[in-house]
């Protein structure tokens, strides 16, 4: 299989840290998006969305620091000691990851302002969410050509994903009665647009990275991408089932609809976790076929 980097314990650690970082970033970005999209959501649901965004944003910063250490350790060849080596850390800071860290940190600070229940706070939070998204365009495969197209596609992809991922826990919390069903129904309406966008821009990005259908089956990048797509398909099936079966059942007041819906959203979250792992592997240990 072509285009697979050597995998040692540092690479595994990097993949796990990267996946956790993606999760934290999407949750932090998703908070302001949820608050903006659902002003009518009950106070406790909005409070939960805020709380998750703040905690995720803080965890995201911690993970960023850990990723700096892991990268310094990897390039130093000295193991754990290298993770704290000032010179190696300086090289990482000078690399695109340093640029990404600046965008990510400023974006995080702005997401914190979404904590305040005001229009200005929310607008700043949305700008912060976009900045965290943009931070990912300064590293890795998005740096290829055409640069601006790749960067725009990736930012849109992340914002659309964040809207979905950030809404999972608040929606699960709201899924208890017919009142919650209205919120879930509205989410389903918006998501039918944002998920289509998510997939369209993701597929375009993947096409620019892959360049041919054959490469899907002959490269490590292709196989990892296929694995991601299989899990995405599973997630779509769960989401469609929620939208067309469980949410209407909840609205009708069908018995145990709430339990089924909450469990179903839990499975969505697990699928998201697997997708993040596949994406982190894609971004860490594989080379896009167009670069081979």
């Amino acid at each position: 299989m072509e285009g697979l980097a050597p995998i040692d314990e540092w690479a595994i650690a990097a993949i796990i840290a990267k996946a956790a970082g993606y999760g934290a970033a999407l949750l932090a970005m998703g908070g302001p998006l949820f608050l903006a999209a659902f002003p009518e959501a009950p106070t406790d649901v909005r409070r939960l969305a805020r709380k998750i965004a703040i905690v995720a944003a803080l965890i995201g910063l911690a993970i960023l620091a850990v990723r700096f250490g892991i990268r310094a350790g990897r390039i130093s060849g000295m193991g754990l000691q290298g993770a704290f080596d000032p010179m190696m850390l300086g090289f990482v800071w000078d690399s695109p990851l340093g640029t990404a860290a600046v965008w990510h940190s400023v974006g995080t600070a702005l997401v914190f302002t979404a904590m305040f229940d005001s229009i200005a706070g929310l607008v700043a939070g949305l700008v912060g969410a976009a900045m965290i998204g943009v931070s990912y365009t300064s590293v890795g495969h998005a740096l290829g050509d055409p640069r601006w197209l790749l960067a725009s596609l990736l930012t849109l992809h992340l914002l659309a994903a964040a809207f979905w991922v950030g809404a999972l826990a608040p929606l699960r919390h709201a899924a208890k009665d017919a009142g919650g069903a209205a919120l879930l129904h509205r989410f389903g309406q918006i998501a039918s647009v944002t998920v289509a966008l998510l997939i369209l821009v993701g597929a375009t990005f993947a096409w620019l990275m892959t360049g041919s259908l054959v490469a899907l089956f002959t490269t490590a990048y292709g196989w990892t991408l296929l694995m991601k797509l299989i899990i995405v398909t599973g997630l779509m099936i769960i989401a469609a089932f929620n939208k067309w079966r469980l949410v209407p059942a909840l609205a009708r007041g069908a018995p145990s609809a709430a339990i089924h819906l909450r469990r179903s959203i839990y499975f969505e979250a697990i699928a998201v976790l697997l997708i993040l792992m596949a994406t982190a592997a894609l971004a860490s240990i594989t080379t896009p076929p167009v670069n081979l």
Partner: protein
Amino acid sequence: MRQTLFAALALAAMATGVWAHSKAEQTTPANDATMEKVEVIELRFDAPMRVTAITMTGPAGDVAVARETGMDPVTEFRAMPPADLPHGAYTVDWRGLSADGHPMQGTFGFTVAD
């Protein structure tokens, strides 16, 4: 699905793939070459690479190599092995940071013999 992912990761861990982002990487001595004398260790990259670590091991363990190239990103990296390397098999390992921020690594081997 989780098992599938782990199985794939385990499979990937066993595979010996090419190094990402350094397809055009060439070395002096060439990989698997047999040389009478090695005067310089060279790594050539298709894009600037900051080589952050380089180690060489020989029949008697670690061999110190003197870097001629500094820590700046380069497309051609040079380091000097000690003069008169004893006969035997040698392996060079390097680590680096590519221009797009990816941590990179590579290894190659050569033999010193008459």
